[in-house]
């Protein structure tokens, strides 16, 4: 029971981060702010959902697997965010224009 409530809370919180990331992607004014919003959803949002999923697993091996998937995603989404920002910076994408990206 306690675990179920915890799992639900974790997943809802994770979903909230994804929602916030989506809103940020659509509403933030420039490239860097939008990338900032999306990477939060990717890492923290997915981390919360993954922790929730891991807690529901009976087998600890599967739970560890889920957490490993999250760690891999965190690694690649952090790097991808950095690369996108760098590309935007190098290509001098107009800061603050909606059609820039």
């Amino acid at each position, binding site marked *: 029971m306690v675990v179920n409530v915890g799992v639900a809370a974790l997943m809802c919180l994770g979903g909230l981060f994804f929602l916030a990331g989506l809103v940020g992607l659509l509403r933030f004014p420039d490239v860097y702010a939008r990338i900032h919003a999306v990477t939060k959803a990717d890492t923290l949002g997915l981390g919360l959902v993954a922790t929730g999923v891991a807690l529901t697993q009976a087998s600890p091996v599967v739970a560890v697997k889920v957490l490993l998937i999250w760690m*891999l995603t965190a*690694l*690649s989404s952090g*790097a991808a965010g*950095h*690369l996108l920002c*760098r590309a935007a910076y*190098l*290509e001098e*994408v107009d800061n603050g224009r909606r*059609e*820039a990206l």
Partner: protein
Amino acid sequence: MSLAAWVFDGTLTLTLVVLGWGAVAARDPFTGIVRYITFGLMAALAWARLGAPDLALAEAAIGAGLTGALLLSTLGRMGLRQASRRAGEALGAAPRAPTPLPGMAQAWSGLVLGLSLAIAAVIGGVARTLHGRNGPGLGPLVDSLRETSGIDSPVAVVLLDLRGYDTLLETAVLFTAVLAVWCLGVIRFRRPPWPVDPVLASLARVVTALLVLVAAYLLQLGLHGPGGGFQAGAVLAAAGVLWTLADRRALRLGESRLARIGLTLGLGAFLVAAVIPMLAGRSFLTYAAGSAPAWAWVLETFIAVSVGLTLTALFMGGLSEIAEDEAEERAP
């Protein structure tokens, strides 16, 4: 089927149609490619929903991932990315501005899309009335082949035994594609074609190793369940693409004798496996009783190596060999 499944599948189908249309009708190529990649990911999800994890894996790795990377690198090299950013204000002014689909072409593609949807619906309906929902299909045939050949996985049996000839030709097509690209000529860069980022380089070191591990896992899985040579090859190719982007030395792949041997390995091994039975008086591509699993294992491994190298080479295109005097210079 539960309500949630209906809603999910309905949304998925609708998304596929909208994304497919969006990819074709996009005004600027970059948008079109991004929609195409998203379409590929959704298609992979659809295959997974249909209970075909093999196809889902292949679609996600090749359809979305590698084809997307190929298209993006092509776009980058055509200088279209710059042009397409300005497309809104200076359409036609830029020398290589992308041309939007003219009205007639849009109407035609709409018509074709509608027609193919209608045809798909008719075929689906006919197939369903002919065979019923859980018709036997080719299941019994494949199962009997599994018994006789000793290969566990139904997909591997179809690919290597039942449809061995098709698979042989598929590896030949991949091989020919690389030859064709290389025949178009080599572009030698004095400067690296793209800046190498330290973050990307360290990510690539970790992820490439993991991807090779995943490929090996998929390979050994292939004889018993979803996975196999092509999927493992696609994962290897993903590692190859990442390596290409992160390390300039990767661009010397085309010059490496080892890589060339690797490229021919899949097709070569398949031909040897196909011809050996003929020496014993049997016909082309018939394995001796009991030897099929061993052949399947060898072929799948070699195909994985070849597919990985082939797709990496295709991603590089004609790029090759940075001049030696530039090789030691600073990364920008």
